[in-house]
């Protein structure tokens, strides 16, 4: 009975979504206040009913209700409770429910924190989200109802959750990633509302920016969590494989990054309006593409859900309608936005344009590399794959260019910056960065390396340019502290995120250039030497977990005769499915990670194992934390909270005045 209540509550949410997708939008165009005012309570209602749906599914998991097909396929009586709960998003149906629930959460947030926006705009934003919500719930009910029953004979026990998913990161990675993903639906709704109302001014950009920043920050964390998980769970020593399911979040992220920069220009200078709108549509399309790729059964991967062609067609339909429809609206409405260039060839606008072009090109090339094999297969029937070298060849030089522009951007001025000014500001910074890049790696590793020099130079370039900018901004204040206090949160957010780029760059470059790995066969008592660390194998012992049994190896690591760590990698066999699983053991550190994964036993207690030393790999995730933190504090800037009436008119007048002379 209870699972049927789940279906029922989804149907109620659907009904509310249909109303939300129609009445407020009509109300906004007819200026019917009553219909517009419905949008907030309706959003809250959808949130509540989808929340009940999630709660009922979780209840079915926790009570081992195997008559529900989704539960039977993704759980087992032996599964620990925390994984029973999170198995809610362990498969296609449940994770789509979570996705939709996350979106209703964003809708609720928009309903709650939109007091500074005019009512017709709020109604349009929520109305657009209501249409999306309708499509998602329809899809869920039509093709993938998580509450579908197995009749007449439910199994006695469930098939168990995929063993690769029984991990702490599984509890947090999917919700965070979805949260970031659907956050871009909100930004998309802002863009569509702007197109519908014809209102795309600095005030619009100011309403939109905090949402874009938060969605971007959460997506950053979601992707970083995924790569961290891949790194320690899959045990191949890397954190990013350019896998076709990893790429869509990155494409979305790159569009999102371009978007938050373009929004800055739109807010401060009133230009790039239609471009900003297009980026919002593209970022949203990227998130739908990710859904389509993982849920249509086009690919095999840890992320892919079992194939069902009708789902693929349905999602493709949503993708086509949403993206096609919004692009059509864009084509009709965007030409109405008149913006002249209004800036010089060398100016902050141009640097931000460069940023946008690089990011969009990077996203497009990843898109091409991801979809090319699928299109190729559809046309020729031949299977091909595109390896990581393709992505590295394109992505790396683009990122070098991006970082070069990143150093200059914050120091440049709006409208016009003279070359001699930039040279005076950054000449010394450039020389110092190069010097640090050459000298520092020489001191530390005692040899010259191109990668290390390039990476350290670029990271210094970002950091030193940032310090220079801070000094400029605080120089004319009485004390440094007062100067620092006078700077806005959004400024600090930007600097934190840029510093995150520097950290990530170091992590990516140095961990890929200086990693060492060895696959060896060790008998108990034997040891192997890697990068000055000695790994001694002490043998294995049997272990028993709640739903698995296995062997745990003990490897003691020493360096220069001093004990560093004892690593205990495991080889598990899950009881319900008999699936083997490898748990690697990591000793993580700021400057290097050591890790060991077990292969198999080869007789006489000897085991094959892979041993890795990975310098600076933590900096990849440290960098993403800085980026996400930057995005969040920038969204907390007090100017977004100012009351509407006073500031809006003023701000508009200002932008108008700025635009007049130049256009």
């Amino acid at each position, binding site marked *: 009975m209870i699972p049927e209540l789940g279906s029922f509550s989804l149907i109620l949410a659907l009904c509310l979504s249909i109303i939300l997708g129609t009445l407020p939008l009509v109300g906004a165009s007819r200026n019917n206040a009553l219909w517009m005012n419905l949008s907030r309570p309706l959003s809250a209602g959808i949130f509540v009913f989808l929340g009940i749906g999630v709660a009922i599914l979780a209840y079915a998991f926790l009570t081992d209700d195997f008559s529900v097909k989704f539960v039977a396929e993704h759980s087992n009586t032996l599964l620990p409770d925390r994984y029973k709960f999170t198995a809610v998003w362990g498969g296609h149906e449940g994770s789509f429910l979570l996705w939709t629930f996350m979106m209703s959460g964003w809708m609720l947030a928009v309903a709650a924190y939109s007091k500074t926006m005019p009512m017709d705009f709020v109604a349009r934003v929520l109305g657009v989200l209501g249409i999306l919500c309708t499509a998602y719930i329809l899809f869920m009910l039509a093709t993938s109802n998580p509450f579908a029953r197995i009749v007449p004979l439910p199994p006695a026990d469930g098939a168990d959750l*995929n063993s*690769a998913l029984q991990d702490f990161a599984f509890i947090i990675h999917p919700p965070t990633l979805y949260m970031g993903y659907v956050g871009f639906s909100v930004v998309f709704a802002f863009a569509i509302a702007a197109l519908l109302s014809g209102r795309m001014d600095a005030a619009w950009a100011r309403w939109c920016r905090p949402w874009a920043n938060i969605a971007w920050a959460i997506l950053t964390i979601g992707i970083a969590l995924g790569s961290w998980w891949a790194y320690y769970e899959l045990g191949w020593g890397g954190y990013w494989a350019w896998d076709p399911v990893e790429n869509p979040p990155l494409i979305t992220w790159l569009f999102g990054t371009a978007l938050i920069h373009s929004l800055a220009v739109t807010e401060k200078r009133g230009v790039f309006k239609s471009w900003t709108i297009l980026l919002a549509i593209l970022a949203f399309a990227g998130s739908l593409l990710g859904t389509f790729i993982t849920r249509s059964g086009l*690919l*095999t*991967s*840890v992320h*892919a859900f*079992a*194939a069902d062609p009708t789902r693929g067609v349905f999602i493709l339909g949503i993708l086509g309608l949403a993206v096609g429809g919004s692009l059509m609206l864009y084509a009709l409405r965007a030409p109405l936005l008149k913006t*002249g*260039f209004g800036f*010089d*060839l060398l100016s902050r606008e*141009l640097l931000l*344009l460069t940023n946008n*072009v*690089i990011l969009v*090109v990077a996203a497009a*090339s990843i898109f*091409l*590399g991801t979809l*090319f094999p699928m299109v190729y297969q559809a046309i020729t029937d*031949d*299977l*091909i*794959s*595109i*390896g990581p*070298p*393709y992505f590295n*060849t*394109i992505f790396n*030089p*683009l990122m070098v260019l991006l970082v070069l522009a990143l150093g200059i951007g914050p120091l440049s001025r709006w409208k016009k910056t003279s070359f001699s000014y930039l040279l005076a500001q950054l000449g010394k910074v450039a020389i110092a960065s190069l010097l640090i890049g050459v000298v520092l790696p020489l001191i530390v590793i005692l040899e010259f390396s191109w990668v290390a020099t390039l990476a350290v130079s670029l990271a210094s370039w970002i950091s030193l340019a940032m310090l220079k900018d801070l000094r400029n901004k605080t120089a004319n204040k009485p004390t440094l502290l007062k100067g620092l206090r006078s700077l806005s949160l959004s400024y600090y957010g930007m600097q934190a995120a840029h510093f995150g780029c520097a950290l990530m760059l170091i992590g990516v470059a140095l961990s890929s250039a200086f990693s060492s790995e060895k*696959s*060896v*066969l060790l008998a108990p008592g034997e040891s192997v030497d890697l990068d000055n660390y000695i790994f001694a194998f002490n043998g294995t012992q049997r272990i028993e977990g709640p739903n698995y049994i296995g062997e745990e190896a003990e490897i003691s690591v020493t360096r220069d005769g001093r004990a560093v760590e004892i690593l205990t990698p495991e080889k598990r066999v899950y009881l319900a*499915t008999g*699936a*083997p*699983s*490898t748990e690697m053991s990591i000793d993580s550190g700021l400057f290097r990670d050591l890790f060991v*994964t077990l*292969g*198999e036993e*080869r*007789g*006489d207690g*000897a085991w*094959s*194992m*892979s041993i890795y030393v990975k310098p600076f790999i933590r900096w990849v995730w440290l960098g993403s934390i800085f980026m996400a933190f930057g995005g969040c504090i920038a969204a907390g800037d007090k100017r977004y909270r100012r009351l509407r009436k006073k500031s809006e008119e003023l701000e508009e007048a200002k932008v108008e005045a700025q635009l007049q002379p130049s256009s």
Partner: protein
Amino acid sequence: MKPHRRKTLGIIIFIAIGLSATVGLIFFALGQNINMFYTPTQVAEGEVETGQSFRIGGMVKEGSVAGEDDSLRIEFVTTDYVSDVPIHYEGILPDLFREGQGIVAEGSMDLAGVFQADRVLAKHDENFMSPEVKAALDAAGATSENHAELSGN
């Protein structure tokens, strides 16, 4: 030319140069990194040149896996039930590598007609067969019953 026209032109040229450079780079990189997929039958019929890098997919033949006790070298045979191709690999095999299961390997053929694998991938989930392996079996005309048995349903 008027100043604002010159500005517009400057920006257009700037974008055009950047775009054409990247498009060139993309096609260069794409051409370098396309890995074709072949079935054991195609390999046995000599469609692949020695040393050419490609992917092969098929089932691990029952009873064909042989390893040495003092090294990580491992030999096995992959099959689409029409033709067999021997594979040599040195390293640690994925968790789900087993006889009678589908695998995909990346590498190239050596002069002796042995596929030297740089990487061996097994499917991630036992209920799901890699489309590549499935295509290989379909192409070889594997019978429907051994198909059903293979995909574990």
